[in-house]
């Protein structure tokens, strides 16, 4: 009995395997999964034959009055195009010819693809402290953030997945080639002259008159491979870019989430706010882009915290909250490179 059943199942799966192969050979799209119960299939096939007489009987039972349309639970009632008062003809199915404007909420994936850029890497360690380097911290936070984003349905592209040297222009090129929606660069600060300072800051692209920021940008850009002339051209082209507004918005949200979350673990943490600076990864990318300095390695206490995986997870979670909040706030359709306010 059991053997006969197994043989039956074997014949069925073999038939289906051959059918799938023939579909591949003919270039036919994959078949939809059919309901497992053949009785269900039989009844589904017969449904139209049964529904037509039922509808006619129901109409006759109502003395020939039009049957009101059924509004499914959860769906808003649509304006009726047919006047139900015009009795005489049975109205089996009402349709509307008026075109409703589709709201932006119908396209909830304006921010779908995120580029995560773990700062430094390979021969470029970034800031260093005792037994820890910026490149290691940023990579770890990037990995954690990637997991959180992917679980939420975002598509994530990373500029580096391991400890390797990646030129800044290559990071930007990767982001641009991947046609991503936002770019988030993760860095850790080091303020050698003020080791007591510790804070969080987020950058977006723009000119700055602050000499310390110019110095910081110059340091971060030093391995970019761009000449001064290239830089000038790039900057002239992008300072007036409309995406600056979006980058500013993203930076504001990310900074808010970072500071609110991390302050809970460290009451001495300072909010250094949202700033503008011409970091090369912000200059050369085509999408809203921010650079978050998520901590300060030159501060001993903070360096100790950054060594703890749970604190790095907290940073990743805060960045995730920021990205998700930005995505939710911008969930309408948008054209790449254009602002999406209203």
């Amino acid at each position, binding site marked *: 009995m059991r053997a006969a059943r*197994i043989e039956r*199942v*074997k*014949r*069925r*799966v*073999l038939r*289906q*395997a*051959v*059918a*799938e*192969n*023939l579909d*591949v*050979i003919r270039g036919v799209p*994959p078949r939809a*999964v059919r309901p*497992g119960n053949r009785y269900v299939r039989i009844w589904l096939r017969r449904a139209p034959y049964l529904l037509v007489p039922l509808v006619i009987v129901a109409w006759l039972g109502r003395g020939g009055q039009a049957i009101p349309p059924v509004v499914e639970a959860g769906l808003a009632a649509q304006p009726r195009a047919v006047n139900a008062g015009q009795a005489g003809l049975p109205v089996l199915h009402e349709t509307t010819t008026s075109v409703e404007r589709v709201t932006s909420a119908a396209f909830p994936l304006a921010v779908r693809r995120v580029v995560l850029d773990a700062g430094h890497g390979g021969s470029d360690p970034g800031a260093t402290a005792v037994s820890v380097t910026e490149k290691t911290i940023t990579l770890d936070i990037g990995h954690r953030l990637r997991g959180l984003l992917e679980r939420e349905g975002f598509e994530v592209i990373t500029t580096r997945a391991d400890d390797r040297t990646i030129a800044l222009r290559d990071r930007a090129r990767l982001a641009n080639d991947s046609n991503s929606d936002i770019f988030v660069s993760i860095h850790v600060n080091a303020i050698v002259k003020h080791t007591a300072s510790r804070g969080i800051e987020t950058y977006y692209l723009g000119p700055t008159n602050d000499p310390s920021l110019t110095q910081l940008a110059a340091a971060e850009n030093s391995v970019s491979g761009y000449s001064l002339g290239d830089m000038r051209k790039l900057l002239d082209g992008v300072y007036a870019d409309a995406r600056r507004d979006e980058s500013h918005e993203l930076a504001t949200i990310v900074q808010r989430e970072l500071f609110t979350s991390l302050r809970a673990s460290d009451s001495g943490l300072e909010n250094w706010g949202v700033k503008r600076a011409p970091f090369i990864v912000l200059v050369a990318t085509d999408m809203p882009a921010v650079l978050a300095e998520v901590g300060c390695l030159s501060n001993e206490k903070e360096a100790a915290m950054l060594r703890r995986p749970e604190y790095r997870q907290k940073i990743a979670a805060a960045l995730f909250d920021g990205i998700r909040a930005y995505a939710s706030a911008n969930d309408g359709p948008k054209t790449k490179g254009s602002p999406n306010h209203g």
Partner: protein
Amino acid sequence: MAEILHVGIDLGTSRSAISASNGERFVVDSFVGWPLDMVAKKVLKRDVLIGHEAVSNRTMLDLHRPLERGLLKEGSEKDVEAVRELLRHLLRLVGVNGKIDASNVRAVVGVPAAALRTNKQYLRNSMKGIVDSLLIVSEPFAVAYGLDALLHTMIIDIGAGTTDFCVMKGRYPTEEDQRTLMIAGDSIDTQLLKLIEERYPQANVTVFMVREWKEKHSFVGEPQAPVIVTAPVKGVPTELDITSDLRTACETILPPITETMIDLLARVEPEFQERVRTNIILSGGGGLIRGLSDALENALKGVGGGKVRYMEDPVFIGSDGGLALAIDAPEGDWEKLTA
């Protein structure tokens, strides 16, 4: 009438196996190499080397491992040619183009569960002229078919390039019944090599050595005995204790496999979940990692408990399943499946 030969082929990233209806079975390393220059050709006395022979002589060869993640690498003519050489070699081993002509061969080839239709079409094209008719199926399905495990069973096939999951529900598995993870034997090798290099920076270790150690000693959980291997340190053969590194590397595959297994179980109709939980089969080389089935059973305790068994001889389990499919497929179907 000419003799028809049915074959099942498990085309793997690391190893490829063939089982034939004439009783022959072979397994070869999925490496193909061509002599680098005339000197190498003269030394090796061969135009192409395949399998273990290719690995052993790799320094003289343009060596290719053509199946990345269990799939034929597209866009690389050399890799396509390598796959064709590999297939020809496997078929030669079971007698094709000796007593049996290639035009009388009907083959079933297993590919990763998540292989796309384009990958299958690509493989089909590359097998033109090598076999008469070809049926391509998902590898874990071939395993399930060979074991008659077609109902309320989960197959977890841990190969080198991919780990394939397939829940058998009495039908040919659809996308929703299958998953493929890129975490498998190769990722353990990479991790183990990295850990050994960190611990013994002076040691001269290659991925081939690491792979051999893993295949011999792999385990998760508590070690039964220290794992001591020999590798040159500054040219001197030296004993290295890699116990903890091997454990760490092997255990990296546990979280993703556990997560995927439980996720797939949760998608089974509730009334059948318990039956599937108690019918989980580990196959592929990775199934031999000591302690893996126990670790997965431990993870299942959180969802009501279950039973995970592993196949003692995983090498031919996929190709034997393919052979069973090849023999059972009706003659009329084979005529439609011309390669």
